[in-house]
């Protein structure tokens, strides 16, 4: 409540508040904090990789440690940085954009968050408990079966727990969009970021269970002596590759579609124009999502699935360029003739278009199954996926952070530093990865910890490492910007950018119930409609009345802790069966929490009309 928020609160109170919160805006803060922390860890790992490769035959890292670095860099960045940061933005913005007071399952929202946190912590504990996973972020069998120590076990359990959290988050968003849109907010009036959240959640829902099964099979093989990947007993290692990529390819669309969505919103806002081709944008998003499930085997062209399978998957892969091209042209057409305002959010969006287009073009090159034999497992692939994931997702996250920072935290990020961050990062990024296309074409394989002198690879690798340090500098400036803004940043008005969508009708940051009265939506870009008709604010769709809100709960935290303890137990019961106690205790805690949740009635609470009237508008 904004009255309570103005009073100074102790650290313990704030901590307890965040541990028990079911408010989507606070959960968003935690996602951003957790994702940001793991982003820094993953970035540090990237720097170690680049330092190792700065000169030929460097001995900065040992071969084993290098394997751990690349594995943890990939796994951390995908599962613990990019996705949680996106989930944070979705949590912060999507309910506001559809005019909802909260999500459909606030309790599950919190549970998803804590599962992600504990999964991430479990995975990273491996550094201190006998070594990190070292079989690549793809963890292919039989390498992952043979990998000694507990590294891969941490990978399996950490991702299993974090993945369950993501799945829960996806289901929550789906139900939220279906049932909780404000009066008049039809599907085809939803902002593109909301659409992207919705479709991404569908992808999460149908992709993650495949990973769940793959991880279970790996876990059973490593810990309980099953034979899924044991060829001597009739096992088949290709099953892992199929399951991993049936999950893994939709996963990359899980990473990019939210970025597409928020770029659409940003282009439209800062061009002061309705998004060009709204309907086409929505259906292009759906088409990308649909095709995303049809192309997993393009990661497996060299496995030997045969020319027919390879051709089908190659064509399906190239087909994705069509809806993506539609999007690129629609963004350009949105800006065409608009009155464009360039600030840091817009800079990231503008930088995204050429960067992502390069990544998309190398994607089509890789999609050609015959040519792929040449590119496979070289730095060309590394360059490609960094162009799409950094140039798309990370640019998107940074654009979204700059755009919605005032809405999330009530202060505007410093523009000068924002622009500096963008230019240094943009230059550093292209220095690092553009040259890697050529390194790959010249035959430099990925995942090798050294390369030989005078093979034509020395200069390219040096440039690449310099670029990586530029990106690090940019990130440090961004962090300084965050601290600076928190201390003396400008207070943000409710609508700092002359926005178009519903999130800009709420205060910055919004009251915890978001909308005192739910707004009546009369079309696409509802706030803009009211502005053009001279009213400037939304018409309420309901009289002022009591607001029903969910209660906070510590159970999601304890439940996730239970799974975390059980995870530790599973990992170490291989060494000594006494660790099974941890499995039983952890599972008992988790299941006990579920039982309490099921048996104890939780009706939520009401904010009374009188209380709402007392608060200033």
């Amino acid at each position, binding site marked *: 409540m904004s009255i309570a928020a103005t009073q100074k609160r102790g650290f313990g109170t704030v901590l307890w508040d965040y541990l028990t919160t079911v408010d989507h805006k606070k959960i968003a803060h935690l996602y951003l904090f957790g994702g940001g922390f793991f982003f820094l860890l993953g970035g540090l790992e990237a720097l170690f990789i680049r330092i190792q490769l700065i000169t030929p035959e460097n001995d900065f890292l040992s071969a084993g440690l290098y394997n751990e670095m690349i594995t943890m860099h990939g796994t951390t960045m995908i599962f613990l940085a990019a996705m949680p940061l996106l989930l944070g933005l979705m949590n912060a913005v999507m309910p506001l954009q559809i005019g909802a007071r909260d999500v459909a399952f606030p309790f599950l929202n919190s549970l998803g968050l804590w599962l992600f946190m504990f999964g991430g912590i479990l995975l990273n504990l491996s550094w201190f408990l006998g070594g990190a996973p070292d079989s690549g972020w793809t963890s292919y069998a039989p390498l992952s079966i043979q990998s000694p120590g507990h590294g891969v076990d941490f990978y399996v359990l950490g991702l299993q727990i974090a993945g369950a959290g993501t799945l829960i988050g996806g289901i929550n968003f789906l139900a939220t969009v279906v049932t*909780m849109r404000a009066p008049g907010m039809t599907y085809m009036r939803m902002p593109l970021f909301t659409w992207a959240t919705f479709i991404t959640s569908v992808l999460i829902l149908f992709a993650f*269970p495949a990973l769940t*099964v793959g991880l279970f099979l790996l876990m059973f093989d490593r810990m309980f002596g099953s*034979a899924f990947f044991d060829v001597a007993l009739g096992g*088949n290692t290709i099953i892992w590759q199929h399951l991993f990529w049936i999950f893994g390819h939709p996963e990359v669309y899980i990473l990019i579609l939210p970025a597409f969505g928020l770029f659409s919103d940003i282009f439209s806002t800062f061009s002061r124009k309705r998004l060009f081709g709204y309907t086409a944008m929505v259906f292009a998003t759906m088409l990308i999502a649909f095709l995303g499930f049809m192309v997993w085997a393009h990661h497996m062209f060299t496995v030997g699935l045969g020319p027919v399978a390879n051709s089908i998957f190659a064509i399906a892969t190239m087909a994705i360029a069509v809806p993506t091209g539609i999007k690129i042209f629609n963004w350009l057409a949105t800006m065409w003739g608009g009155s464009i305002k360039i600030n840091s959010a817009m800079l990231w969006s503008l930088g995204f278009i050429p960067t992502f287009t390069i990544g998309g073009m190398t994607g089509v090159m890789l999609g050609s199954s015959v040519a792929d034999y040449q590119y496979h497992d070289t730095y060309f692939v590394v360059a490609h996926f960094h162009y799409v994931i950094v140039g798309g997702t990370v640019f998107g996250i940074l654009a979204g952070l700059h755009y919605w920072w005032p809405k999330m935290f009530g202060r505007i990020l410093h523009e000068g530093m924002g622009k500096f961050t963008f230019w240094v990062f943009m230059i550093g990024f292209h220095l690092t990865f553009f040259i890697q296309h050529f390194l790959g074409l010249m035959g430099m394989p990925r995942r090798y910890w050294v390369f030989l002198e005078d093979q034509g690879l020395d200069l390219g690798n040096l440039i690449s490492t310099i670029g990586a340090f530029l990106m690090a500098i940019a990130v440090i400036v961004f962090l300084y910007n965050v601290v600076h803004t928190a201390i003396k940043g400008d207070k943000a008005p409710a609508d700092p950018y002359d926005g178009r969508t519903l999130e800009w009708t709420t205060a910055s940051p919004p009251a915890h119930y978001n909308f005192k009265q739910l707004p009546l939506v009369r079309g696409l870009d509802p706030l803009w409609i009211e502005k053009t008709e001279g009213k400037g604010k939304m018409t309420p769709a309901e009289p002022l009345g009591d607001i*029903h809100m969910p209660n906070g709960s510590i159970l999601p935290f304890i439940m996730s802790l239970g799974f975390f303890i059980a995870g530790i137990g599973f990992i170490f019961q291989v060494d000594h069966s006494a660790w099974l106690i941890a499995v039983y205790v952890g599972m008992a805690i988790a299941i006990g929490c579920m039982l309490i949740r*099921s048996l104890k009635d939780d*009706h939520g609470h009401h904010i009374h009309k009188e209380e709402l009237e007392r608060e200033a508008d």
Partner: protein
Amino acid sequence: MSQDHSLNPETMPAEPEKATLEGKNKFFGLWFFLGGETVLFASLFGTYLALKNSTAGGPTSNDLFGLELVFLMTILLLTSSLTSVYAMYHMKNNEFKKMQLWLGITALLGLGFLACEIYEFAHYITDYGFTFRSSAFGSAFYTLVSFHGGHVIFGLSWLIALMVRNAKRGLNLYNAPKFNTFSLYWHFIDVVWVFIFTVVYLMGKVV
């Protein structure tokens, strides 16, 4: 609680499970969850189909499976799905006692199914030495069927917890969605079993 009144109306609406926003959310949420579960089982079926002939010299599906027991299990589970439909029918007519009765029968049939499954596994292990570790076929078989069995155990625990918790207070708009989501889940388990019956057992006897 201020809203106890609104959750205990004088006359129950026609669809008490979807009368509140929370109920509607639970209904959609569970359907979405089942979508994810479908992929989970599809992945397990895919794995099983890839490995079902990888017996590593051990017993094959044709040696192991006896259709009599599996037929009995199928009847038990299909009937339990039917009885859960009766329970939901009575829920919609606000007849709590009858709903509890049919849910009780559902639980008993589910327990019967589970007993048969445990007997089946014990039979394979003791009489054929066919275990989770014997071959890739063994791993795939036990994983697929036990994931289903695990879902049955979870469903039964859920059902019994719901029945005991609400035994004394009857139906209201707060717990009606809970019973309804359970019944959706139970139907899903049943559907998965139909596929296991076909793909694992019937096809296992043919090939």
